[in-house]
């Protein structure tokens, strides 16, 4: 409809569960026509925000408008605009994919025939034709997740809410879901997704909001955020532990930044200094330097920063679970789980 109405408008949004404050004055304005990723560690408030948008939790304070509708004042209007696919694949395992979609379509308000049409369309859209007549209990993780996604689409929502859409999926299934989400976004559906995988935000999102302790700590177009926080990391693993200091020295000399040294795994890593010094160029210099010092290298590479490193940059603490000590070993890697 109108371009003037923002997709989401959160102002001072506060949600509490007993003594726990899950969202603590969360502010966000997001326009339509984009794929927005909410990025943050477990316990940061991502899921709570999605649940607030889906009218499933009642805010203790602040306001939240979805396409102009107030979640507290007019929840039914909000529910007509959204489709929710959760962390759990919320489909009925004893029903077939087709039955699940038709049921959800009826519950969105479609009449019988329109519901059948919507279900058939979504099955085509998500490439589920081969399994549509089978009970969902027999589906693979990726098929289930795609069906869950489909169930959120049969009402033709203007905003698709995906709460950690690929958590727990194997890499192949994850790519299947990514392809589907990307296709939907390209086709014009507004998407809000939460993730704790930087890689996922990287693959899918136009805009990223980074959330920590219930507040937005950074927001903006992905490219912009990347320029600030997404610098490459060069990581060296030495074959002989005794040569680790020498390797660290080379990293420091080439990049001008303080390397992180992890003697346990014989690794030293450093964030590549600036946008003017791309990771690959620095890597060549590092290799030359290491050869000059006769450091025998076990493994070396340029990689994207882990979420942990992004968080360190942005918030000054590691991306552990809220309230846990930094050394708790719960390091969230960009791609590992």
């Amino acid at each position, binding site marked *: 409809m109108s371009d003037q109405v923002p997709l989401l408008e959160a102002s001072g949004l506060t949600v509490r569960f007993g003594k726990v404050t899950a969202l603590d004055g969360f502010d966000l304005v997001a326009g339509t026509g984009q794929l927005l990723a909410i990025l943050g560690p477990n316990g940061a408030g991502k899921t709570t925000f999605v649940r607030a948008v889906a009218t*499933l939790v009642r805010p203790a304070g602040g306001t939240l408008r979805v396409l102009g509708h107030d979640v507290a004042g007019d929840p039914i209007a909000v*529910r007509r605009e*959204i489709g929710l696919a*959760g*962390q759990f694949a919320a489909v009925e395992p004893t029903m077939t994919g087709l039955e699940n979609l038709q049921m959800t379509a*009826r519950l969105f308000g479609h009449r019988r025939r329109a519901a059948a049409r919507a279900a058939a369309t979504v099955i085509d859209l998500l490439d589920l034709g081969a399994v549509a007549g089978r009970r969902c209990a027999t589906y693979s993780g990726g098929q289930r997740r795609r069906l869950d996604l489909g169930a959120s689409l049969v009402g033709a929502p203007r905003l698709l809410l995906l709460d950690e859409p690929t958590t727990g999926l194997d890499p192949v299934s994850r790519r299947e879901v990514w*392809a589907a989400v990307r296709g939907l976004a390209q086709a014009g559906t507004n998407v809000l997704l939460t993730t704790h995988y930087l890689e996922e935000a990287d693959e899918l999102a136009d805009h990223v909001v980074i959330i920590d302790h219930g507040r937005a700590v950074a927001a903006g177009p992905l490219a912009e955020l990347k320029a600030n926080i997404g610098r490459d990391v060069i990581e060296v693993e030495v074959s002989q532990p005794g040569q680790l200091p020498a390797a660290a020295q080379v990293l420091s000399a080439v990049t001008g930044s303080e390397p992180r040294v992890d003697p346990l795994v014989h690794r030293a890593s450093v964030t590549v200094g600036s946008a003017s010094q791309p990771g690959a160029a620095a890597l060549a210099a590092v290799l030359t330097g290491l050869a000059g010092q006769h450091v025998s290298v076990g493994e070396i590479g340029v990689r994207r920063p882990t979420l942990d490193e992004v968080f360190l940059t942005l918030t000054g603490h590691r991306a552990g679970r809220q309230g846990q000590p930094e050394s708790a070993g719960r390091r969230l890697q960009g791609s590992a789980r």
Partner: protein
Amino acid sequence: MTQPTMTLPPAVIGRPAAPPAALTAAAQVAIRVLRKFVRTPGLWAMGIVQSALFLFAFRYVFGGAAHVPGSSYVDYLVPGYVATIVLFTGGGIAVAVADDRAQGLTDRLLSLPIPRLALVLGRASADFATNVWSILFTAAAGFLFGFRLVDGAAHALGALGLCLVYGVVFTVVFMVIGLFAPNAQAAQGMSMIAFVLAFISSTYVPVATMPGWLQAFARYQPITPMVDAVHAQLAGSTSDVALALAWSAALLLVFTPIAVLRYRRA
């Protein structure tokens, strides 16, 4: 997977003109619950097999030692057993409700533009149907194990009607248990409370045979008048029927709003 070529879903699917009518929504919710029940043998078969086995044990194992004044034990046992069978099989309702919450199905339903009341109504209707299945099956098993009507079929219908009313009441009670249980296992455990109510009542033995301190509880908890009313109906009397219906109404009045409110913020 090859990248599917997509077109804008709203353009292809079309947005529904209005949210569904409450009854349409309730019917869809009910159909899902019933499909799950019918398609899961563990749900429709286990309850009734247990019910038949326990009835068998009470009738043929303990029954020989149990003497009740004025009738054979099987004729005493079966009416109360049928009337309270939902206290045993209804635990499945609590488990299913808790499971739906844990699995995210409840969130999905709550995020759709349907009235909360439709959700409760659909769920309760379907769960009541599963209770009817238990009641009818258990009654049939009762006849198989030697129960006979002494006073004609017309009175039996009144007694069955009462059992169905209790079926409605305990559907809602078990829904509430499921809504408060953090997970399916907890729901199962919490449902065991119902066993205690059934055992310390006039279901299996007359209250007068219990120690005095226990009689006080047995006599004034709802199950005893509910069972006594069924016995009375079968004998063509209406004694205790008003009390049983009053208890039923009271339980419904307490538990229905709890169920609706709890769903609202589930």
